[in-house]
């Protein structure tokens, strides 16, 4: 192989590997629930999206939610949700845990886009920890964007708002003040 071509081929190879690396199943939804509930997840329950709930979910997402009911798992004051939202073209499957109206955990379970997979890393998802809903169902904090992953960041922010809103509907919980 000519020496001059080597850096070009290496760069192309890295690009392909980067694309392949972004996509993947990072945690099976069942494994996520097992981890959240220490190996004993409660049975699922459903929240029906009707009337005001359906309307608010649509406002948060900017489009209709894909189905008329959403599955969730509740144990004590914690609820777990597995939700999907499209980043650019493909849905991002995300596991979210809410406790007393605050986000306890957000984890990307399945990422299908070719770019923007950085949103799965802790440095990004940690920003959602303890977030709660403020006025107009907006998060009480600003989530820093990741260059090149703007649409995935937006999708996860919407899912965090949605999970917090849904939690409020099923637990009627009160947000505890920040420590």
């Amino acid at each position, binding site marked *: 192989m000519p020496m001059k071509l080597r850096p070009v081929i290496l760069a192309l190879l890295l690009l392909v590997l980067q694309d392949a690396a972004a996509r993947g199943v990072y945690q099976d939804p069942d494994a996520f629930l097992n981890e959240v509930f220490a190996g004993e997840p409660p049975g699922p329950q*459903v929240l029906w999206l009707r009337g005001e709930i359906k309307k608010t979910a649509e406002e948060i997402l900017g489009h209709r939610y894909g*189905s008329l009911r959403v599955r969730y798992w509740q144990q004590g004051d914690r609820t777990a949700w597995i939700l999907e939202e499209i980043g650019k073209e493909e849905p991002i499957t995300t596991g979210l845990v809410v406790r007393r109206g605050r986000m306890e955990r957000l984890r990307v379970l399945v990422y299908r886009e070719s770019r923007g997979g950085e949103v799965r890393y802790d440095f990004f998802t940690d920003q959602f920890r303890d977030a709660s809903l403020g006025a107009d169902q907006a998060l009480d904090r600003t989530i820093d964007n990741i260059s090149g992953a703007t649409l995935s960041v937006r999708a996860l922010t919407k899912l965090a708002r949605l999970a917090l809103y849904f939690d409020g509907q099923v637990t009627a919980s009160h947000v505890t003040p920040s420590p």
Partner: protein
Amino acid sequence: MSHHHPRRRRLKLRSFYIWHRYVGLTAALLVLILAVTGLALNHTERWQLDSRHVTWDWVLDWYGVEAPAQSLSFLAGNQRISQMGRHLYLDRAELPGEYDSLRGAVALREWLVVAADQSLLLLSPDGELIERLTGHDGVPAGLQSVGISPVGQLVVRGGHGIYAPDEEFLDWGHWYGNLELVQWSAPSPLPPALRGDLARHYRTEVLPLERVLLDLHSGRIFGSWGVYLMDAAALFLLFLAGSGSWLWIQQRRKRLTHRRAQARAAAHRSAKPIETP
């Protein structure tokens, strides 16, 4: 010899003008296609050219887009679930998502339950998706068909037995009733009128506008010769760029020569001694 030189140059220039004009006229239509399609393709995402589909019959015919000859259809209550290609339809309305194999459909209470691939779609009577259930939600692996038990319960034939969910589809278990009494969902012929409508709809969901623009841009829409046609357009453009520049240089040189000649004549006139009476 030197006497004929300017005339030959004029003739050469004139001939070049004519070539430039006719090549320009010939290339105009192709350049127009290249420019318009190139402009549109530059904004594919903004104009959603990849998600909008061509609906003109003559373009679809040109591309040979045909609806699949075979289509599966199941009657569920008084509604019909059909598959055309990878699309599912409730009567004439398309359902979200794409599926490889439709396995059955039944009416259950006020809902419709559709088995497709390894999932169950719970639909409201107007086709709204209530929930899509997969293996994570308890749907048995190796899903083969769906049916209704004598007591009106949903029954699912999986790869390892017969299963049934609870009323809310939250919990699944083995079903041990009499299999002969189960009304299994069975395919039935698609009425010709409905098949025609679905085939028409299917055709309009296949060909993205971006594909047609790309093929127009490259010339492939006209077959293998179309590519050479666009190659010719590119060569014409190269020729026009060269001939246009050359003509401009010739004109400029001519103007400069003319100006210099005028300047020399003026200088000559002013240098003449004034004759005194």
